[in-house]
């Protein structure tokens, strides 16, 4: 009737759209994974039982339901392969995120302080690696790091080492690959926060007796924490589940959870255990997410 109602409709749709997306592409698939995680392995197609078949009627469905069990989750706890992979994933993700922060923060800070016209160029330089496929870039690192690779050739030519060093298939190579790949995800949110910062705040801190270094720690850094949180989360969560980089660059000694999942799924064809591991991984990632959300909410509440 009124103009208000007409305008309200697209607005309402826009509000609902993300929920529809989440239900269709997250909640429903997650339901499948959850169901598989409660099933048993079988040499069949699909490789697990029971299989819900709506055509068999309600009684059969109920019987199938009764077969579901938490055995796979118990297995995850009893076999320390899984616990060790989880721990390794967490250790790698936390360390890599810290390294990313230490490297990314100064870069983002430097970008934010460039003259305006150079900031766009700097931004392009950060984003430009995305134009090449991620896999190709990781393979390029293999080339650089291998026994007769570029790095060893340079070190030998400069007489820094007398024999080639082992780079590939080490944790260092994996960290290098992770930091290299995720750096833009750390820099961009940090840059967004730092470039929005009001320069007069730093002048005020200076004016009130804070040296430039003090002013950084007392004003710039605390005000950039939302960016630090966003960057850390954007890196931490995908690194926990990272598969390609550890698989290609790290040694075969210890596995990250992504690799364990892959093994279970493709090599052992044990879909139920792989699904249970995936569900457990998700549950493991929920607490830091909730914590971050809480912190950000509190910060917003303080502002308004």
């Amino acid at each position, binding site marked *: 009737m009124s103009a208000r109602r007409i305008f309200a409709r697209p607005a309402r749709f826009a509000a609902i759209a993300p929920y529809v997306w989440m239900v269709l592409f997250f909640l429903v698939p997650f339901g499948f994974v959850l169901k598989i995680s409660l099933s048993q392995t079988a040499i069949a197609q699909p490789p697990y039982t029971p299989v819900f078949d709506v055509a068999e009627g309600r009684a059969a469905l109920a019987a199938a339901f009764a077969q579901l069990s938490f055995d796979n989750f118990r297995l995850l706890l009893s076999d320390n392969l899984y616990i060790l992979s989880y721990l390794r994933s967490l250790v790698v993700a936390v360390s890599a995120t810290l390294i990313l922060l230490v490297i990314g923060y100064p870069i983002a800070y430097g970008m934010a302080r460039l003259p305006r016209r150079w900031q766009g160029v700097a931004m392009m330089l950060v984003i430009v690696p995305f134009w090449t496929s991620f896999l190709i870039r990781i393979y390029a690192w293999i080339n650089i790091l291998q026994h007769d690779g570029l790095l060893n050739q340079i070190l030998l030519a400069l007489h820094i080492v007398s024999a080639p060093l082992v780079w590939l298939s080490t944790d260092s190579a994996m960290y290098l690959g992770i930091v290299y790949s995720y750096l833009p995800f750390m820099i961009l949110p940090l840059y967004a926060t730092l470039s929005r910062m009001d320069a007069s705040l730093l*002048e005020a801190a200076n004016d009130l007796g804070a040296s430039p270094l003090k002013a950084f720690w007392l004003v710039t850094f605390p005000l950039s924490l939302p960016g630090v949180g966003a960057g850390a989360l954007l890196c931490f969560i995908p690194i926990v589940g990272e598969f390609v980089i550890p698989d290609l660059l790290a040694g075969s000694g210890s596995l990250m959870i992504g690799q364990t999942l892959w093994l279970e799924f493709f090599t052992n064809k044990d879909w139920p255990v792989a699904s249970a591991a995936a569900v457990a991984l998700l549950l493991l990632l929920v607490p830091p997410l909730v914590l971050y959300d809480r912190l950000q909410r509190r910060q917003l509440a303080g502002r308004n």
Partner: protein
Amino acid sequence: MPLLRIEGVAKSFGNFRAVDTFSLDIRAGEFFALLGPSGCGKTTLLRMLAGFETPDEGRILLGGNDIAHVLPHERPVNMMFQNYALFPHLSVRDNIAFGLRRAGMPRAEIATRVAEMVALVRLEGMEKRKPDQLSGGQRQRVALARSLARRPQVLLLDEPLAALDKKLRESTQGELMELQRRLGMTFIIVTHDQEEAMTMAGRIGVMDAGRLVQVATPRNLYEAPATRWIAGFVGDINLFDGQVIASGHSRLTVSTAEAGTLTVSELWPPVTKNVVSVAIRPEKVKLSRRAPANGEGDAQTINRLDGVVADVNYLGGVTTYKVRLESGAILRASMANTARLDVDAYLAGQRVVAWFTADDCLVLEQ
């Protein structure tokens, strides 16, 4: 020796000379206003006093020491920023204590000083709030308290009232003056608002294109502007260009194209050029239906101009008139509405005599 001496200070940005060989003395305990249109260099000068810009030339002496190249965090000078620049992540208390902590003041003393400052700007009960939980007027007072907390030798205020609405601005002007008197501190305020400068400051320095063009008390600035430009910038004024055709008995006779022959009192210093402008403030122009009677002044010293009322603007306290003179030029006059009933008002189209005394006119060199 003045508290602050600015000596031949200049600052350029690229080819633009923002501040040009600027010299000024400011006494301890003074409320000084730097007044000028935007882009005149007043903010650059203030930023040089705070240390955010370094002068290309000249010296800035504070208590006899040259501080021109002292870093901002090492100067006994504080600034109140135009946008207040309150730290959004800190409470009112921590904002005010920020400068005290940097100075290494003991905890107990900081608490006392903060409480004192909070009381001074009447923000009791707001200590734990963050800047975003305050109104504009409250934020302004936090900024003031923060810049006063260190008891600077000089407080610099960059358009401190620009962000407030008119009513709040007027009451805050009074509070600032009261505060400055009570603390006996030296305030230097930068403003583009001449009314604000005239209300608050003891002395006003007018800047134009990076230069200081006049330093005077508000009254002298208004009644005896040094140049035509200042006369037009500060308040409203009628200007008639002409030539001096006779002088003597401290009177000048000026022949103007627009307002005929005018008799004006000569000011000190005397004009040295023949080509001058006669300036008269609108409120000093009187209107009457007939020529003023003899009792109202010596015929020699009264200028009478015949005209027709072209426009009337009722503004509440005053009414402004535009009178079209016989030459076609417009003379502006304003009269206080001293009575509620408009028995004395003139209507558009009415013939009037506009008159003013020789003493109320100014002669300005062109």
